[in-house]
């Protein structure tokens, strides 16, 4: 306890409330309120309506929701596969001789690099590289999925390699000493032990991909518009209330999937 006097404590809490509520709680509440209201031209919104949700869950907006979900799931799975493979390879390299340990560190560095590069630039790079044959992806949905996968791979790799570093080597040594093949050890020992952190990484990748705007703005074809682009388009032409409703849909979808993932994680860690 830092502050012992009752008055001082109340002062600290009051300061906290004054800073925290308007800055962090208000934005989310405001979006929620706006999504249900018909007008907002005074202090408070007026005219309770669910019309914006009707607009946000049909036609183009519904399509944007499925686009976002498909993109996020596909990109997360690709990123998890690549990131986990790279983390496992780097961890195994780090057990070898000196040059091999160095190679493992280089591999780690290469895979965190996408975090450091601005995502707009990742979008530009993917656009430049995949706009001409033989790798013509521009104008297809795959270019969006690919860019999302590149952007989130680093996070998958980071969280899996952190988990690998904490993994007790005794399990795999015991399995190997009993004659298990390396592939058997990987499938039956290592990956099950990594399952909690793999699912956490999956949740992180999914949330990041759902909210990705910068690279998507550079790349999206007209028939593959994810939710963030849709929200931007609505806001830009002045229909902010529809934008707010679509934003609530985006937040709800993200939260639902994160909740499901965290239930999987709890089950996996109690096994």
């Amino acid at each position: 306890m830092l502050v012992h006097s009752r008055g001082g404590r109340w002062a600290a809490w009051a300061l906290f409330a004054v800073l925290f509520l308007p800055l962090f709680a208000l934005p989310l509440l405001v979006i929620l309120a706006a999504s249900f209201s018909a007008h907002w031209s005074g202090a408070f919104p007026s005219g309770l309506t669910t019309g914006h949700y009707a607009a946000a869950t049909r036609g183009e907006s519904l399509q944007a929701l499925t686009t976002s979900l498909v993109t996020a799931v596909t990109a997360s799975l690709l990123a998890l596969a690549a990131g986990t493979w790279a983390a496992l390879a780097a961890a195994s390299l780090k057990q070898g001789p000196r040059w091999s340990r160095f190679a493992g560190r280089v591999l780690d560095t290469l895979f965190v690099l996408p975090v450091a590069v601005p995502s707009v630039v990742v979008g530009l790079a993917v656009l430049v590289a995949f706009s001409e044959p033989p790798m013509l992806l521009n104008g297809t949905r795959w270019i969006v999925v690919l860019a999302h996968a590149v952007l989130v791979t680093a996070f998958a790799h980071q969280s899996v390699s952190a988990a690998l570093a904490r993994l007790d080597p005794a399990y795999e040594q015991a399995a190997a000493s009993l004659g298990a093949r390396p592939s058997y050890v990987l499938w039956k020992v290592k990956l099950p032990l990594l399952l909690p952190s793999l699912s956490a990484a999956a949740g992180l990748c999914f949330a990041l991909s759902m909210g990705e705007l910068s690279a998507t703005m550079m790349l999206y074809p007209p028939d593959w518009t994810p939710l963030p682009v849709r929200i931007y388009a609505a806001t830009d032409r002045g229909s902010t209330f529809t934008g707010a409703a679509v934003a609530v849909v985006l937040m709800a979808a993200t939260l639902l999937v994160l909740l499901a993932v965290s239930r999987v994680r709890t089950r996996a860690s109690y096994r």
Partner: protein
Amino acid sequence: MASATLAAAPARLPRAVPRWVWALPPVAVLGLVFLYPLALVVQQSVRPDTGGTSLKPYADVFASEAFREALVTTVWLALGSTVGCLVLGFALALVIAFVPFPGARAVSRFIDVFLSFPSFLITLALLFVYGAKGMANGIWTDATGAAEGPFQFLTTPWGVLLAEITYFTPFVLRPLLAAFSQLDTAQLEVASSLGAKPARIVRRVILPEALPALAAGGSLVLVMCLNEFGIVLFTGAKGVTTLPTLVYGKAILESDYPAACVVAVVNIAISVGLYGLYRVVSRRAGA
């Protein structure tokens, strides 16, 4: 017996491929979808539209007023937001950790949820709060009868600054709360029983413990603010251009790819350099 099994196992199951081979597929994939595209961006930045290879695009971009303005805006917005996030994050973390109140855990939960939302939602919300027809101006015009409210800062750099501080403060709060949870509270009790006032305890006991977490969180936020795109785009201010929005504008709106690539290379250089610094700092801090 056990050692015989151990010795026999490798002989019976010879390692078919050396372990470096397993590292090749991920590197090849990353090279194809990330490293090669980046190399193309650098290559295109020295290929002006007129043909040939020259540094002319760099000279043109560096000479342009728009680029210099964007660079200055980007840097001061990022530095300002980082300082703001550090101060605000430190103050909030102090209260959550050391002046606990019922619901403090719910606040930490809320922060985790907050982190999983995209940044542009904050700007969208600020439009309703401080926008021309928003809540704050509505209260003002209702109360005074004036035609316009006093809050017109949203489309200026200050609006971006407010949104960035709001969105990125949790990124400072999280490492700080983790660091504070490992701090032995007996130190605080001892200092306070020796007569130290809270301000002195914060300065002499808590701040030194928090420095590594502040450094790590601060440099992460600095990199993320430099690269922020959604907040600036949603602000819709024509007057606020940062390096990422300049890349977008040059490439998509003007189709001037060499110039976009030059700005991108500058942005990569700043951002990767700072990120390297962040990795060094956070490894030192053990975070």
